[in-house]
């Protein structure tokens, strides 16, 4: 199936460096904003409070990710590849986000079908007849969800 990547070692930074860097940035931001994001009102109780476990987990994550980043400098990475390939991923993500954003206005059927059609196009489908397939699936899911499972879809 989809390759998870075999160490290419050609281009840097690759997926591993990018992902590790993002995790490190997230952990650092979490530690920086910990006090503002978690309000603790002390009533004289001793022992750990609502900040203790998050602080511990975030410090451990930052340390482990930093170690991985250092070790990755000597190891082969998984190349990011052709920008067109990343462009397809960004297009699918952006179209799904747009579908979700528009869903309260346009409804589940049009939002989900739109996202499905963009996915089909990004995966290389060009035959108009087969682009109807996501419409059919969206219609079945919408009808089944509303009337079969009584789910109040937007």
């Amino acid at each position, binding site marked *: *199936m989809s*390759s*998870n990547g075999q160490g290419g070692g050609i281009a840097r930074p690759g997926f591993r460096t990018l992902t590790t860097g993002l995790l490190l940035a997230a952990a650092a931001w979490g530690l920086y904003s910990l006090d503002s994001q978690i309000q603790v009102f002390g009533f004289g109780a001793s022992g750990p409070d609502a900040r203790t476990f998050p602080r511990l987990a975030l410090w451990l994550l930052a340390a*482990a990710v930093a170690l991985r980043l250092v070790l990755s400098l000597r190891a082969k990475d998984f190349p990011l590849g052709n920008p067109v390939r990343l462009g397809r*991923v960004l297009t*699918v993500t952006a179209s799904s986000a747009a579908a979700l954003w528009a869903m309260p206005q346009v409804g589940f059927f049009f939002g989900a079908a739109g996202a*499905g059609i963009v996915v089909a196009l990004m995966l290389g489908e060009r035959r108009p007849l087969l682009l109807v397939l996501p419409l059919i*699936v969206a219609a079945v899911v919408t009808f089944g969800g509303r009337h079969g499972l009584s789910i109040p879809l937007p």
Partner: protein
Amino acid sequence: MLVDAFLELLNLWVLVAALVGIVSGIIIGAIPGLGPTMAIALLIPVTFSMQPIPAIILLLGVYQGAIFGGSISAVLLNVPGTPSSAATAIDGFAMARRGEGGRALRFALYASVIGNIFSCLVLMALAEPLARFALDFGPAEMAMLMVFALLVIVLFGGGSKLDALIMVLVGACAGIVGLDPISGTPRFTFGSFAFENGFQLIPVLIGLFAMSEVLLQAFDREPLVGDAEVPPLKSSAVRFVELWRMRMTLFLSSLIGTFVGILPGIGSTVPAFMSYSLARSRSADPDAFGRGAPEGVAAPEAANNAVTGGALVPTLALGIPGDAVTAVILGAFMLHGLAPGPFLFRDHGLEVYAIFQALLLSSIPTVILGLLFFRVAIHVTRIQPRHLLPAITILAIFGAFSVNNSLFDVWVMLGAGVLGFLLRRANFPLPPLLIGLILAAPFEQSLRQALLTSGGGYGIFVGSPITIGLVALTVLSLAISLFFSLRKPRI
């Protein structure tokens, strides 16, 4: 109790649920890339309006069917439908190339069923006593148990230990979001009410396993299966005496699968290869392995099916999932009001035993449907991603929404999908993340409750025979891992 539980199964909907689950599982499992985890996560919303017993039976049927389905593409196309079928492909595909594909699939099917029956019996024997024992656990015992479980995932989950540790910590950090389990203080909620419930398990699962697959395929655009020809399937049969001759292989493989399954985070791939190696080393003709030995098909199949029952032991008795699939099943149990943990058997014993019996009895329809559907499933392996993945996208959006009827969960699913894509491309393992997410809140709660009880003294974590035993197990695990790391030849 057992008779009452059996009577619960005498219901048409239970039978329908089992059959639909097994058939769906065989077909979905045959499609490479659509493993049982994704299949169950996407099908959970379908079970919302069902009673708990048929709902869980449907999902477990999907799991059973998908594991066998995974061996179809492994044997006939050398493309494992699930990672655990990779060991099956070694000898299965060799058999298929010499025209014995049908026989290889029958060996796989019968071995799967034997592994499943064995692990179900172990599950029935061990889960309730373990849950009863765990009723005596206080917060300190639960905290130490979870430390041990998380450590096992990191040390023995396969692959890089540092990567597994990072994933556990990512899951734990994601589990922080929401209300503090002790004081109810909002944490990283950005002032939003939607964040106060935290990240729900099912949307995260759907994102990590289904949406990330869509993004990976958008990146790779690889056909699920190449243009490889399916070897001709001749009419064939497997005689009972052939299975009897490999009874020790089947027994040992089932034993390995079950007991490795009980250990959290290891999954079914490791026991499949362990069983394959053991069968080869015990064989009178080890050179036949790799060239189409039936035992080379039966051993990994018995082991990877036996993992189910084994992994369900800690999942149901302690609320600690064994792997990604049992994490999804745990989510399904919770959605149907059957919260896994020590109280499950006390409060919902009837439902749980009915589910166990159904898991055992579903071996019969699995054999029948497996034999009937494997020829159909071959055609399913030819489905192109561009036809399948748009439907998965729609189902992922629907599935995430339907958990709480909330678009916030769909955003969470999409975010988890992007994260899953990055992590999978960077070769980080996903199951430790999932288990970290599930265990973060109960671990923190137990840890803090224990410290509140002891007035902040850490002696409580070595204050009872159970905690001392768990600490000893934790230290032993570390020592074993260190021993094997030092013994590993360095290149």
